[in-house]
């Protein structure tokens, strides 16, 4: 029992916070300060700068001059790489992302069913995800090379003439897709965790109703994990927008034009089939020194990436919500 009358206590409680609140604000600011600086210097400033340069002619050496929408017109009408890159990115978003999600889910399901040696299989299935992309891509260009590659050698022994893989414009994206399927470990782990979270009672109830394996998957598993499926699709789509290292290294190694050989590398070899949007930014900004046009492509990429991020944030509001 407190001796302080109720009214007085309430007053004291109200009076104290003003100084305290200022202190708290300062404390919050202190904790957030690294990120506030980082956000401003490495995110907001360059973003505004990108918008600024998209209206400028600038080669990095002479002073920038205002050209209005000329860069936009150039990129959308005359640049030979922009539209092929966008088309390739769309292809990868549709085919590569969906195959990866389906394969990741399948492998995740398989892992949960394995009774003997589950730990071994889990590690094995996950391991390729860790292979550095440059190393993994070079390995696959070797494995799939039409001359001495093991894959075509094996196909030969069973009487199939293997395709030209990374050297054929219609096979280069499927080859990249095979590489992406090999590195499916991240999705496998995410799906595995989601599958283990499905309530057991629901499967028991389904069994009582006489459900077969497909029914169990369709009416119990899938509804339970559908938020995770959506999450993986959206994250995959966003990751596809920055897909850069694998197609570039594959094209360079497969075309044989790399590392100071003096030859000019043909972007997107073969026949622009592996060109992606980030490669266009690199080509414009760092090979042709056309800063303005590079920034236009960067802004297109920014708008696309943010649209999908907004979708993700709306669907997974748990990303934002805190405990209170």
């Amino acid at each position, binding site marked *: 029992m407190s001796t302080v009358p109720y009214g007085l206590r309430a007053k004291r409680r109200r009076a104290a916070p003003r100084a305290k609140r200022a202190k708290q604000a300062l404390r919050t600011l202190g904790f957030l300060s690294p990120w506030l600086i980082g956000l401003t210097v490495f995110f907001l400033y360059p*973003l505004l700068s990108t918008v600024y340069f998209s209206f400028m002619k600038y080669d990095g050496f002479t002073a920038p001059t205002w050209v209005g929408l000329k860069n936009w017109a150039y990129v959308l009408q005359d640049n030979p790489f922009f539209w092929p890159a966008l088309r390739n990115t769309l292809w990868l978003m549709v085919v590569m992302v969906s195959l990866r999600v389906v394969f990741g889910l399948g492998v995740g399901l398989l892992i949960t069913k394995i009774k003997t040696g589950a730990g071994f299989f889990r590690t094995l299935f996950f391991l390729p995800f860790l292979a550095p992309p*440059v190393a993994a891509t070079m390995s696959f260009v070797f494995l799939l090379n039409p001359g001495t590659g093991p894959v075509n*050698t094996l196909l030969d022994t069973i009487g199939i003439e293997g395709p030209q893989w990374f050297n054929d414009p219609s096979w280069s994206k499927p080859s990249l897709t095979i590489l992406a399927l090999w590195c499916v470990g991240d999705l496998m782990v995410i799906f595995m965790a989601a599958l283990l979270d499905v309530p057991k009672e629901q499967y028991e109830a389904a069994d009582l109703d006489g459900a077969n394996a497909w029914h169990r998957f369709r009416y119990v598993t899938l509804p339970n994990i559908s938020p995770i499926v959506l999450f993986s699709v959206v994250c995959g789509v966003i990751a596809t927008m920055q897909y850069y290292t694998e197609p570039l290294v594959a094209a360079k190694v497969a075309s044989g034009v790399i590392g100071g050989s003096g030859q000019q590398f043909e972007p997107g070899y073969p026949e622009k089939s592996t060109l992606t949007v980030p490669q266009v930014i690199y080509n414009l900004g760092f090979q042709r020194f056309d800063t303005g046009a590079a920034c236009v492509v960067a802004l297109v990429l920014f708008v696309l990436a943010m649209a999908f991020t907004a979708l993700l944030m709306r669907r997974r509001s748990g990303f934002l919500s805190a405990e209170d």
Partner: protein
Amino acid sequence: MTDTTLAPVKAPAPTPRTETPAHRTAKRKAALEWVAVHSLAIAVGLFFLLPFVFVFLTAVMSDDQALTRDLWPKTWEWGNFGTVWETPGFLTWWKNTLLYAGLGTLLAICSSLPVAYALAKFRFRGRNVMMMAVIAAMMLPPQVVIVPMYLFWAKQLDLAGTLWPLIIPMGFGNAFTIFLLRQFLLTIPREYTEAAKIDGCGEFRTLIRVVVPMCKPAISAAALFHFFYSWNDYFGPQIYASENPAAWTLSYGLESFKGAHQTDWNLTMAATVLVMAPVIFLFFFAQKAFVEGVTLTGVKG
């Protein structure tokens, strides 16, 4: 009627020694499923394993044999690894990669932890906006801001040709690290931090003394992710370091290695093995932390 209701409930017959046909079919079905699941697992396992095997087998072939379609090495040329190791530059790439990955990771963790703590535990206006900024920055393709960023580092600070433009920003919070740590910090009950405060700890001391020991698994997962990210990064070193071979990293140098050894698949694959090996080695030490980290990003949202 009355008979049956009054009669003591018959206990189900004890499982007979001799199996009923129903039992047998159930057992056979389980055995069949075991065989089906494990054959499938082996088939899928081969898809994941064989690329490693072929890469390794080629890495130990002789120069002549690497030009043929042979799959199995006639002689085991372990010296290939030594040849790669002694290639001029290879050791420098190693050192650079360790510097980029090691120092970058250390900075990223130290600067991201307080931010993640504030976003998870403090109540303040604009917290949701800040969180959205973290997610947006995390999802933003690095290529969107690369042109002005390069101009900033190269023209204003004259740091082109070094890895510092990649390391210094890590001292100012890394969006993915902040996100990962914050997701974990949300799971720590408020009681722990409140108790520390009652004991007279300030927020910073609470973070160091109470929170950090509690989220060691999340910190190691975040550190691993960041280490792997820098180890594997190709785009960053290409932008900032390509003009200066002395600043190349393994990922970037590996590609030029192929250029210098155009037809020597054996040496190229030996170099590939040497770049992959440390990552895989590290994984076996920290498998649990790593898998937990992946799960944390996707499921606990």
